[in-house]
């Protein structure tokens, strides 16, 4: 028993203390959180825009008078559908590599490219979430807004979208948790995220157990913590349900 414990301690010192290797994990963790946070925000912005275009087209196409507005909206809807199909139909690692090696081939800012790639990816999933939230808002809300004299865009901005976002807020927070784990493939494009940080240590020490288990534990602790936070948020939203 004692022997086993001593071995573990030696492993720990080798992997994290020697040469200050723990710094790889800290750098990785910071990058993981940076990428996740930026991606989730970008995803919400893209997702909201796509959701508005898609639901506007779905709900109004047959009632709109023909004209430039209708054509423009139709084109927008088609572009959104292509975006959703492509993003949801290809693996995120491939999208990430296309971003890094093709679209931004001249950029060496891996973290920035990863933020963008995961944001664009997340946007597609968030879009359908928010679209569901918009469609779930009672039709009377739109009518009340329009009857006061708000145009369609103003009604969306002041009345529909705030309610839709509030309704899907727990799901959006969950998207953050999903992204936290999904960004672990960022190492593919030379970004030192948490996973890559652990892997770098493994490469230096030729000892896999300690760095990988610790990386896994850090993810687990964060996910459990954020899940608890989302649960709290959900309960608070429900109790203040106006």
């Amino acid at each position: 028993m004692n022997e086993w414990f001593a071995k573990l301690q030696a492993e720990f010192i080798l992997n994290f203390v020697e040469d200050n290797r723990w710094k790889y994990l800290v750098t990785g963790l910071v990058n993981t959180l940076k990428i996740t946070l930026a991606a989730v925000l970008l995803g919400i912005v893209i997702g909201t825009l796509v959701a508005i275009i898609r639901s506007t087209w779905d709900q109004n196409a047959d009632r709109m008078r023909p004209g430039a507005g209708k054509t423009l909206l139709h084109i927008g809807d088609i572009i959104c559908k292509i975006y959703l199909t492509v993003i949801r139909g290809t693996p995120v690692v491939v999208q990430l590599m296309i971003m890094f090696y093709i679209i931004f081939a001249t950029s060496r800012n891996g973290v920035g490219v990863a933020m963008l790639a995961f944001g664009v990816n997340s946007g597609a999933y968030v879009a359908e979430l928010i679209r569901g939230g918009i469609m779930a808002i009672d039709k009377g809300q739109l009518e009340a807004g329009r009857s006061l004299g708000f145009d369609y865009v103003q009604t969306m901005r002041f009345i529909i979208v705030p309610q839709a976002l509030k309704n899907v807020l727990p799901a959006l927070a969950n998207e953050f948790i999903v992204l936290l784990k999904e960004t672990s493939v960022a190492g593919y494009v030379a970004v030192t995220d948490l996973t890559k940080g652990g892997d770098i240590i493994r490469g230096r020490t030729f000892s896999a157990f300690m760095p990988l288990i610790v990386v896994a534990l850090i993810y687990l602790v964060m996910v459990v913590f954020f899940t608890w936070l989302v649960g709290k948020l959900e309960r608070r939203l429900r109790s203040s349900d106006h």
Partner: protein
Amino acid sequence: MTTDVLIQVTDLQKHFKGGKQNQDEKIRALDGVSAEIHKGEVVVVIGPSGSGKSTFLRCLNLLELPTGGQILFDGVDITDKNCNINLHRQKMGMVFQHFNLFPHMTILKNMTIAPMQLLHKSKEEAEKTALELLGRVGLADRANAYPSQLSGGQKQRVAIVRALAMQPEVMLFDEPTSALDPEMVGEVLEVMQELAKSGMTMVVVTHEMGFAREVADRVLFMADGKLLEEGTPDEIFTHPKSERLQDFLAKVL
């Protein structure tokens, strides 16, 4: 009552396409309705359900797009494609059966957002007007409550003053008491009666025959998408001419 025409409706048509099974079938919700609403007048629209009375009301501010006919509001053809309906809707307040208050805003915010955004009133000015209006319907103390904290009758009174906060020229009521518990109908009708007394032009679709008889200047009776009879409450309720109206009154009175 003056004779100035505020809303002139000519041969209004609204056809819906049939369901998926029978696409060719057309449902004629409105089948050539012509009517005039004068300034300061209270017009009550009655009729059996499915008669098109709600569709008629919702066409007046184009929440429902008519498929034919013309609506002149203040002399402007609002069915014209180039007409900016949003500007006209600011002058046409509407009250719905299901209140449609904005649940994510306080009562005060519900009432100030449109005047602030659309009429560019300052926050202070909009809130002052809102509080005055809330006082008129006895709800000044609920200004900071959320709609979910109010009873149905209170919600509908707020919905009425929310529309009034835009200082409209006409108020449209779409069955404002139909979703209310019976004991709350009175408080809403009372507010509407007050409003009528203050000289507001009102078009009211309702099943409240007592209100129609007491408050209306003119009653329109609709059935099958047509305007079958119109007249003073006395003419409609005491001396109904058409058989459909006699039938209808026999059932509801």
